[in-house]
């Protein structure tokens, strides 16, 4: 009887350990908040081009993550991307003329929204729209711009050379 009891306790501990591991996986290695998702307030912003921004991407200011992108839509009126983001409730003192831009983490990393604080005395609240936005830098555009400049510079120097 004593032995059976020990085995039952051991089994209980084992299953508990398994469930604890599963819980660790769900809470620690994924970013998804299970259950409590309805906290914080929602801001929207329209971008010319969002590049590779995805739902779930962080929204940060000064390098600190304030919230996440929750929805990306296409605005068919003016052909721009409409991004909705949820900001955590403790960050409720963001000036309402702050601007948002899309940056890339590292050289090949994920894209995120970086905000820069403005100087306004009033703060963003639920449902507000960020008016000042800056699109993602698309690498191909940069390269083609650079090549065009480079070619122009070359032809100019070629014209100047015969004189």
């Amino acid at each position, binding site marked *: 009887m004593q032995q*059976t009891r020990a*085995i*039952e306790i*051991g*089994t209980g*501990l*084992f*299953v508990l*350990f*398994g*469930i604890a*591991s*599963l819980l*660790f*996986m*769900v809470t*620690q*290695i*994924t*970013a*998804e908040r*299970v259950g409590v998702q309805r906290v914080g307030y929602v801001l929207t912003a329209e971008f010319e081009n969002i590049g590779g921004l995805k739902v*779930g*991407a*962080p929204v940060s200011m000064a390098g600190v993550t304030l919230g996440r992108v929750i929805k990306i839509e296409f605005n068919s009126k003016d052909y721009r991307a409409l991004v909705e983001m949820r900001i955590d409730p403790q960050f409720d003192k963001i000036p309402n003329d702050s601007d948002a831009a899309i940056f890339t983490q*590292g*050289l*090949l*990393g*994920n894209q995120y929204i970086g905000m820069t604080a403005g100087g306004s005395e009033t703060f963003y609240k639920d449902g507000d729209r960020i008016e000042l936005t800056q699109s993602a830098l698309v690498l191909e555009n940069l390269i083609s711009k650079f090549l065009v400049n480079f070619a122009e510079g070359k032809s100019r120097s070629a014209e100047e050379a015969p004189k």
Partner: protein
Amino acid sequence: MITLLRELWRSTREALVQLGRVFLFFLQLLAFTPAALMRMRLIVHQIFNAGALSLVIIMTCGLFVGMVLGLLGYDLLSRVGSEEVLGAGAALALTKQLGPVMTALLFAGRAGTALASEIGLMRATDQLSAMQMMAVDPVRRVVLPRFLGGVVAMPCLTAIFISIGIFGVQLVGIQQVGIDSGSFWSQMRSAVELDDIREGMVKGCVFGVACSLIAVYEGYNSLPTAEGVGRATTRTVVISSVATLLLNFMLTAFML
């Protein structure tokens, strides 16, 4: 030539017959399951045997697999200068592939052989026949609790393996080679989704059913000799490993 073809046909037919028998055995076990759940004590005992006793091997192997993954991943990723991705890559590899497959292989080697040889020895020493004489169904009394114990233990072991593996990756990645811990965890969190964990756990459950089924089937149908028990144990490991890898391919293709 004709004899060769005939031989080939014969062995193919034999394999099909075996597959059919395993499946029928599985259906039989499923049919008895509701009644067996009434006798939890037997199952608890087997969860302890299959699960808690495999804990040491699962944890050490998980730790070392994670550490190797950390070292190799760091070596490879530092060449392209993006070491922070290590957390994401290793976590995905562990949850989706390495965790379930390695756990199933170790489970077949540790718990599967124990099940097969235990039941096989009962067969060889006529304990199963004695039970039948006493109007106790050996499938219900001996085989089913062991099968269910394995089925419950395997997902738990998979979760433990994955967690310990990630701990191992972290141990090498952050403590030893010095990747920034913030970006390590945040890259991991942004890469791993709930679906990936679900995939890993579904695989763990499927492998658990497959490995336990093969072990109890081989043990129950072993020849009642010392050699027969040995052969059943060997076949358990071989068939479980092949079945695990085959099922893994199918599940991966299915859930991609």
